């Protein structure tokens, strides 16, 4: 039951202040940059919406955005079903439960730049375990510094390795919360394993899956450290995702105006797609 209590606002105030410092002020700074041109020394020239116009018409931006969507799409398509399958096959009671949970959590505990460095070394053709195995033992030409396909396969595999656990753990939490009576009733109703998944497990996992998809979308769409450490955006521009491109423009070329405009567009896209996901996923509940 909802109750009216104005004292609640008082408790929210510190958080509001914190959010203001953390988010609002930086965003306003970015907005400020995005409509001006600067050559340093704190000299600014008014540009209006020029940067936005330029950016939206630029092929470089389109390509980076396309790569970003491709990356996010691929990892969602792989990680979500894979995560569910692993969660389904995990034991739901007994001594193996904590073991499985710890094993699952391990990749997520490793810092992002370490993950990038690890996979970089792992795949080096001459000294890396995987790289050596592929090139010298199996005879497959695999070098992600030369071959764009190899670079893509590597960053996707790395992300799957790093983040599928999140989907697993969330799905698992959804699964264990289903009362036994549901499984018993389904058995008695003569439901097949597929029906049990389709009509009991999947609907009961829906809330956590929504969260998992949203988190994975936002995280992967904004991913920077791992691919930067792994490929640096190469070979060529083949793995230059939006975030990597952004940093190149902002820090590499010191074009603060265009970079700010790009950040805002980037932010708007993330927000829009997240909102779309969320509304679509929760549409049925409103009825």
């Amino acid at each position: 039951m909802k109750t009216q209590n104005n004292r609640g606002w008082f408790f929210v105030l510190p958080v509001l202040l914190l959010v203001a410092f953390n988010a609002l002020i930086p965003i306003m700074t970015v907005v400020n940059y995005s409509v001006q041109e600067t050559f340093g020394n704190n000299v600014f020239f008014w540009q209006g919406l020029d940067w936005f116009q330029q950016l939206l018409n630029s092929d470089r931006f389109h390509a980076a955005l396309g790569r970003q969507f491709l990356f996010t799409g691929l990892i969602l398509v792989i990680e979500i079903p894979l995560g569910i399958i692993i969660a389904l096959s995990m034991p739901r009671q007994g001594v193996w439960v904590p073991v499985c949970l710890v094993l699952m959590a391990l990749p997520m505990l490793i810092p992002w730049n370490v993950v990038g460095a690890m996979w970089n070394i792992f795949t080096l053709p001459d000294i890396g375990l995987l790289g050596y195995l592929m090139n010298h033992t199996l005879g497959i030409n695999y070098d992600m510094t030369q071959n764009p396909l190899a670079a893509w396969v590597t960053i996707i595999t790395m992300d799957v390795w790093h983040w599928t656990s999140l989907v697993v753990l969330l799905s698992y939490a959804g699964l264990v919360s289903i009362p036994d009576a549901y499984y018993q009733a389904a058995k008695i109703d003569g439901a097949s394993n597929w029906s049990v998944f389709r009509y009991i497990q999947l609907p009961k996992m829906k809330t956590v899956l929504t969260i998992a998809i949203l988190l994975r979308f936002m995280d992967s769409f904004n991913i920077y450290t791992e691919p930067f450490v792994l490929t640096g955006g190469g070979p060529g521009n083949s793995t230059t995702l939006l975030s990597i491109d952004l940093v190149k423009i902002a820090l590499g070329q010191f074009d603060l105006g265009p970079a700010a405009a790009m950040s805002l567009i980037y932010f708007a896209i993330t927000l829009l797609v997240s909102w779309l996901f969320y509304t679509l996923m929760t549409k049925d509940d409103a009825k």
Partner: protein
Amino acid sequence: MTLELRSITKRVGAALHIKETSLVLEPGQFNVLLGETGAGKTSLIKLMAGLDPLASGEIFLDGKDVTRLNTQKRNISLVHQFFVNYPHMTVFDNIASPLRVAGMAKSEIQGRVEDAADILQLRPMLHRRPHELSGGQQQRTALARAIAKESRAVFLDEPLANLDYKLREELREQLPELFAGRGAVVVYATSEPEEALLLGGKTALMEDGKVVQFGPTAEIYRAPVDLASAAVFSDPPINSARIVKKGTTAQLAVGPAWQLTGGAAALTDGEYIVAIRPNHVLPKRQKEQAVELPGTVLVTELSGSESSAHFAMGDENWVSLAHGVHPYQIGGKHAFYMDPAHCFYFAPDGTRVA
């Protein structure tokens, strides 16, 4: 020690969840809040306990205005329908926790906890944890905590609802004795009329967020102010039907007529509603003046020592409740008898007229 509510209300958004309520609750006997699920019993208890803010009105505990006092400072106890205990603590620690919070001396805590445990027969379980106890024992632990705390007001919100039938019966019998002579105001919420009657004391009938009647339990049972309060205080549901009064005769729309006496006879002629509790509609004629109701038996129920029959008379459904076991034929014709002396009469808008 008294708990006084002065014109309190509770608002959720634009809707009034508790309508203006004034009550003076006294210690020494149970104050029962009786109403169906959703009538506002729990909401009212939360207001009294200070867990929810009032929209308007004041609450006085022992003559002092506590309206704006935090729940923690009111020295009250609340026992829920669900067994709320600290899972990681032993029964002893569970009972002792409010005393420790209050900073009481160790020796005194020991004494109070043991006293409360003795009263509730928890002595052998003091070192167990809640998950090692049965439902009844868990709820007794929650009750012991309320007793050991010696609070000024104790709120029991359907404390027996989740217990086995027989256990409920036993604990219900003990409850009034547990709190007798402790000087605390005891408020007990229930949806079962029988529970209110067994606990005695006073009853506040609640309906749709307001107290419709308050007074000694037996009195309210025998003299409902309107059809709604008569209905709340009846399980199985009270029988009610339209009648036309002409002279001293009452005529059912479907069914027999009978002679009115006393206040009912003095009413102006017209349409009224008659209501009679199922236990006054019997399968055998017991009194000379009883009115015969020819019915068709729909369903029968047996509750151990009593049997009830739902029967149809025309398109109206009636219920009879009688001692012992009666051989009814489902779908068969059966004559039931109601004693007009136990009939209540209401105006068409539901207010009691006789």
